[in-house]
């Protein structure tokens, strides 16, 4: 057969009569890259703050800072979905987020946090790079992780969908090798004050004064 085998006609109708059907979600969940030249470091993923403290009884403060850091970062960097079921299909448990402008969305609940030793361990503490913070033995990074659902089940995933490793039973941390790049703050803000509009579209406007009857800017 040379044509689409199935088209969901209810979805195509512009006056939908009932809830659209749910489609199977197929996400690769690419493994963290292991290319050459990338700074790799060991990291631990903890399910909870307590699990971190149990593992590092001497350094509860490191756990607390890492946890708070990750929680704060999740607010801004967690993947966002317009529909709860789209979020749920990938992460199972989702929560709502919103901003001061009244926008709201669904995002996965943090399933754990990752702590890594920064590569610049030997440098004075005050020069910790972006996204990292000072601890007793050098710079540390932390970031939130989420647990996959459905075809992603059993894995820890980062903000960008990178699969970091498998979720373990109990409180023992999952140890993984990661690129320190993955901890750098993502610079793209979600909202930016708009300074001007209308900087695109002038060519079309100029050309549409010709002829007048244009129906398309495609081809």
């Amino acid at each position, binding site marked *: 057969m040379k044509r689409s085998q199935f088209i969901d006609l209810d979805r195509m109708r512009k006056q939908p009569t009932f809830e659209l059907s749910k489609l199977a979600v197929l996400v*690769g969940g690419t493994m963290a890259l292991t290319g050459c030249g990338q700074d790799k470091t060991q990291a631990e993923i903890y399910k909870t703050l307590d699990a971190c403290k149990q593992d590092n009884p001497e350094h509860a403060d490191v756990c607390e800072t890492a946890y708070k850091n990750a929680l704060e970062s999740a607010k801004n960097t967690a993947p966002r979905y317009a529909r709860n079921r789209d979020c749920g299909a990938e992460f199972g448990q989702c929560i709502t987020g919103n901003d001061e402008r009244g926008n709201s969305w669904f995002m996965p609940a943090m399933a754990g946090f990752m702590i890594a030793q920064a590569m610049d361990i030997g440098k004075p503490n005050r020069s910790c790079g972006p996204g990292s913070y000072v601890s007793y033995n050098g710079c540390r990074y932390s970031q939130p992780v989420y647990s996959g659902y459905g075809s992603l089940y059993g894995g820890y995933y980062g903000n960008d969908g990178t699969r970091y490793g498998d979720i373990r039973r109990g409180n023992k941390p999952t140890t993984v090798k990661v690129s320190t790049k993955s901890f750098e703050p993502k610079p793209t803000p979600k909202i930016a004050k708009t300074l001007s509009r209308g900087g695109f579209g002038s060519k079309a406007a100029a050309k549409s004064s010709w002829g007048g009857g244009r129906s398309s800017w495609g*081809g």
Partner: protein
Amino acid sequence: MLRIPIRERTDWRHTADQYGFKFHTLDGEPYWDESAYYQFTLRQIEDHLEAPTEEIHQMCLEVVDRVVRSEELLERFQIPPLFRDQILHSWSAREPSLYSRLDFAYNGQSPAKLLENNADTPTSLYESAFWSWLWLEQQVDRGALPRGSDQFTSLQEKLINRFLELKSTRFGQTLHLSCCKGTEEDLGTTTYLKDCADAAGITTKLVFIEDIGHGEGDWLTDLDDQVITWMFKLYPWEFMQREEYSELISPANVSFLEPVWKTILSNKALLPMLWKLFPGHPNLLPAYFESDLSKATGMKLVRKPIYSREGANISILEDNEVIMQSDGPYGEEGYIYQGFHPLPKFGENYTLIGSWLVDDQAAGISIREDNSQITQDTSRFLPHVILG
């Protein structure tokens, strides 16, 4: 390849309303025309159209690979200097593409001849991917067409699968989809792609090209001040590269569909480059840059602007005399010349085949008919079937 009259579905206008197909009639003239259909054999579809489409696409990528590395060729392609590095990087990173449409002159027998590549902003997608498909389903169900009828329209399936692939690299991001205000047809195509992306579970948002903003920190923003990070635009790259916000494109760091390297393919300079790299290829027509025109002495030629849309500013030349032309607002970037190859004529109609690709896979065909040798945006769209 036959053109066969058939009774229209009596309720098709009502069905069009239900499905939101609003541009079936343009300026009072029919655009969707189901008073006839074209019939192909499976061999014609697979050997004469599908296989060459995928092969030519690969040949086109070969051209991109040459052009992005050559200042001289980038100049010939009229690529603004500001975008040359961006195009090279976009190509080196193999930024993913979504779809394209190759246009062929094909009469059912001789090899299909490539007329051009609509690689950046192809339209008539909804009609090809969905509306024609529905026509076939209904006409078979109602007994107007034999049970064994098929059609080459796997576009919708392939588009949704492509969006699923793309989604895995852009986790949780919103895909903005954009076209100009005031064109029902472009909005139809854009909304259709939004439906496909939605079906793949992507969060989507429409924004008109004219409403895009310059956000503090050199981002592109939508009307809610949301930063655009991933965008489908049904708006030509060559326009965007020459407008006020062109300098924002690089810092705004948007992942575009189509990617900026497609500027090379949606450019008529592609045609002489293909002929240079693959001279004599059965699916190509000879084509020349203005400077090589001496090689085309005595040939009947078609002059096409390097950048143009929907058959505008095309001239047919015989012995250096213009014997037919379409007017329009294009041509300031110069012209190329292509050997004239007549479109097949069925009755009073000149017929053009569009052959679709989703990424690098052939995904269907569409048929346009015009009363003129130059197919324009006023031409009609007809369905097709595969039988035998």
